[in-house]
């Protein structure tokens, strides 16, 4: 039986230096509940240290948490890498760390990178700079994540930086992904004329939330279970699975 899952698949925690201190498991889940979300993904920059705490914190809440990360490729393109299980995600973390320059974080510039527990209490501070480019090309990332059973969604493609369209000009024809993420500011009436190529794509809206109020509840997945395989079918619109996005009415925008 298919069920509706209102989802935001791009949420940062305090592991991302640029995220606010409020981005801890209990508060993220409280906000998710307020927004009616039943599926969220934790996607910190090149790191997944807080996914386990988030998943534990979500137990019994009715909110399903996918482990993931927002990876920065060699081309400085941001890519959501999503998995079903923590071990898959941690295995990907090892590959990422082998390709991430070994630099120390400068907290006054990039912000502190906190690892927290299920209640949001501080466990340790990650000293390695996570907000950098990994030495992996776009296609290499997609192949690597697929080989572990995960899924890649290019992030905020309508942004002027760190995005597939800004950095690489257009979506490479052979790119093996099923959907593209746009920001909550994307409006079809103006977005499609600006990037005609997007009309051929399944688009989803996530919050890319660095603070609680940035979380979004605009993308609904009609799927049998909150797993990568089902989400993949929904993005392709196969076997009755589908994605429904609520777009802002451009006429009401100032």
């Amino acid at each position, binding site marked *: 039986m298919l069920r509706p899952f209102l989802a935001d698949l791009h949420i940062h925690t305090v592991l991302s230096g640029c995220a606010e201190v409020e981005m801890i498991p209990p508060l993220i889940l409280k906000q998710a509940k307020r927004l009616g979300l039943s599926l969220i993904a934790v996607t910190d920059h090149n790191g997944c240290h807080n996914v386990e705490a988030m998943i534990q914190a979500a137990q019994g809440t009715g909110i399903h948490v996918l482990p993931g990360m927002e990876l920065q490729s060699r*081309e*400085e393109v941001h890519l959501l890498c999503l998995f079903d299980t923590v071990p898959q995600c941690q295995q990907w973390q090892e590959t990422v760390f082998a390709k991430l320059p070994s630099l120390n974080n400068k907290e006054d510039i990039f912000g502190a990178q906190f690892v927290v527990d299920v209640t949001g209490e501080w466990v340790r501070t990650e000293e390695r700079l996570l907000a950098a480019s990994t030495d992996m*090309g*776009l296609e290499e990332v997609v192949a690597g994540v697929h080989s572990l059973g995960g899924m890649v969604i290019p992030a905020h493609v309508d942004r002027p930086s760190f995005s597939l*369209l*800004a*950095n*690489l*000009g*257009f979506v*490479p024809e052979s790119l093996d992904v099923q959907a593209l993420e746009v920001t909550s500011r994307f409006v079809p009436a103006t977005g499609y004329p600006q990037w005609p190529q997007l009309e051929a794509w399944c688009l989803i809206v996530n919050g890319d939330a660095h603070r609680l109020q940035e979380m979004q509840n605009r993308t609904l997945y009609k799927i049998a279970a909150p797993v990568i395989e089902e989400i993949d079918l929904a993005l392709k619109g196969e076997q009755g699975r589908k994605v429904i996005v609520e777009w802002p009415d451009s006429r009401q925008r100032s």
Partner: protein
Amino acid sequence: MIFLKEVVEKLKIEPVSSASSLDRPIAGGYASDLLSCAMKGAKKDYLWVTLQSHLNVVAVASLSGLAGVIITEGNRPDAETLSRAESEGVVLLVTPRTTFSIVGELASLGVRGD
């Protein structure tokens, strides 16, 4: 008018695709690592300097009819990118040097930007 062949010799940069097509005039120069900007800023017969080596670089160069693309900082296009460049007649050149130093030398050879 300076030709690509002369630039290749003077800057000691290495052609890695379409090496038989160096007899092309260079109308100007452009540098950026954002391909969305290069699609607007790099014009016909321009030489584009970038550290990006993705397959899309070939498409942009072919689309705009560029004289060539200098890929800097030791980045090397993969086999698929090279073969596409070859079939599209796009000249890719590589150098270990930075975009800054390559652009400086191009300017001193008389290659101008907009």
